[in-house]
């Protein structure tokens, strides 16, 4: 059961592999953590439950990366942005299927599972990305 699973970043990415966007919810103060944290940064509780989160959100800001570390260089130029999900949580990620001219701050984007991966030795997590 998901409540038994550890509240770790690795577990967050394991859920993504199952096409689930999950966050940790503090059972004491109710704060939602995405990524999950080992202790609530609001009330210091360690009592959490996994909750499902909507992957729909709005683009808050973006950039187009032209110079990248070696493992991403083949993808350049690529767009990364920070997206605010419907529950208010903000997460960064690559934005795909859009040209720079089509990007508008405030536009609606949806988290997409599993089409954005590049291989790496560590960690072998599934990457998410955002699409229109």
């Amino acid at each position, binding site marked *: 059961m998901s409540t038994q699973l550890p509240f770790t*970043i690795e577990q967050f*990415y394991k859920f993504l592999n199952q096409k689930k966007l999950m966050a940790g919810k503090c059972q004491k103060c109710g704060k939602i953590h995405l*990524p999950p944290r080992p202790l609530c940064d609001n009330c210091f509780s360690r009592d959490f439950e996994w909750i499902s989160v909507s992957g729909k959100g709005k683009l*808050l*800001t*973006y*950039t*187009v*990366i*032209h*110079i*990248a*570390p*070696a493992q*991403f*260089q083949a*993808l350049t*130029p*690529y767009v*990364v*942005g*920070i997206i605010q999900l419907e529950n208010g949580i*903000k*997460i*960064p*990620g*690559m934005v795909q299927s859009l040209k*720079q001219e089509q990007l508008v*701050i405030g536009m609606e984007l949806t988290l997409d599972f599993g089409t954005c991966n590049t291989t790496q030795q560590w*960690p072998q*997590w599934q*990457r998410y*990305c955002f699409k229109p």
Partner: protein
Amino acid sequence: MVKPALLYGFYLGAASIIGTQRNIGLNGKPLVSIIGAGMSKFGKHEGLLAREIFGEAASEAFSRCPKLNPKQDIKAMFIGHMGEAYEHQGHTGSTLADWTGLTGIPATRTEAACASSGAALRVGIYATMSGLADVVLVGGVEKMTHRTTSEVTEYLAMASDYPFEQFHGITFPGLFALMATAHMNAYGTTEQQIALAAVKNHYHGSLNPKAHMQKEINLETVMASRYVAWPLKLYDCSLITDGASCIILTKPELASKYTDQPVHIVGSGQASDTIGLYERKSFTSLNATKLAAKTAYKMAKITPKQVNFAEVHDCFTFAELMAYEDLDFCKPGGSGKLIESGKTRLGGQIPINTSGGLKAKGHPVGATGTAQAYEMYLQLTGQAGKRQVKDAEVGLTHNVGGSGATAAVHIFRSAQ
């Protein structure tokens, strides 16, 4: 040095200039005093290791303070150094104590990304004020140019969040680009305004014989350079540089034993923020800078208007504009206009980055914080040569780590 009677007053944004505001009300007591400072030439040091470059900085600092007996007097050393990856060499504190002839004293590396030596300075103040060490050497070093741009990009990115930023291909310029985009969207700041910081700082760098780049550039050059992370271009980025810097601190009451021209540190603030940019409330300002500045101003008992000149963390041109706002040199959103006004250029009301800044002097990351302090030392002892700020009495340094998870702000004052 004779102090001129009149000082600039700085009422930024005010319609008229002022002229005679003296910093008489300045009653922040010195926390520590700088009795010597040194900086290597910044640039490409082919064939030299970090420890060897540091020797140049330490030697200058010792020679500027002939009354100091380094082996006998220096009781502790704190060294900013960001990355082992560059030279496959960690344990930099003791390494540099060894290679400056100070083996035996406690020597510790402080790491706070690009604010590593700003943090070293802060720790040096702790050590001096605690009474545990009467004389402390703080400094920093980085050797970077032997690595490829791709490698350096990867190593610098280590200062940002791994699992949600680096892992998703967000580079270091990318993080500041995300902030620049947000700022442009919120306030109408333009790429041209951002680029002006590069033009200004290259002009200042042309006056600094130790700067990595000593050539002036024009706006067209910046605007025509290729994108690194839109909207930031190659000439919006600070340089990959080798360099070292250090300063020697003592208790204010002991300063006269070593020099008749000390520089006092009257305010010190350091603050942290979330490691991930994405978790912050605002992308158009750095809260760590605001918190550190608030602490430092309060300690120094001055207002931002009393700052005569500053070295701010222009790792990217946009970061300089954001610093104007976070340090209260102008209102939020006002930095584009402020740089356009020329007030932050040498000769203006509040010259910023007279050394050339990270942009033109160079940014050997671990060395940057104390290199900013070195500029304070030169300016406040009247030794800054062609780039001397007239009547400089109060200066400020602003050193940022990563995308702003660390900021250190220090306020310096010339000896009265």
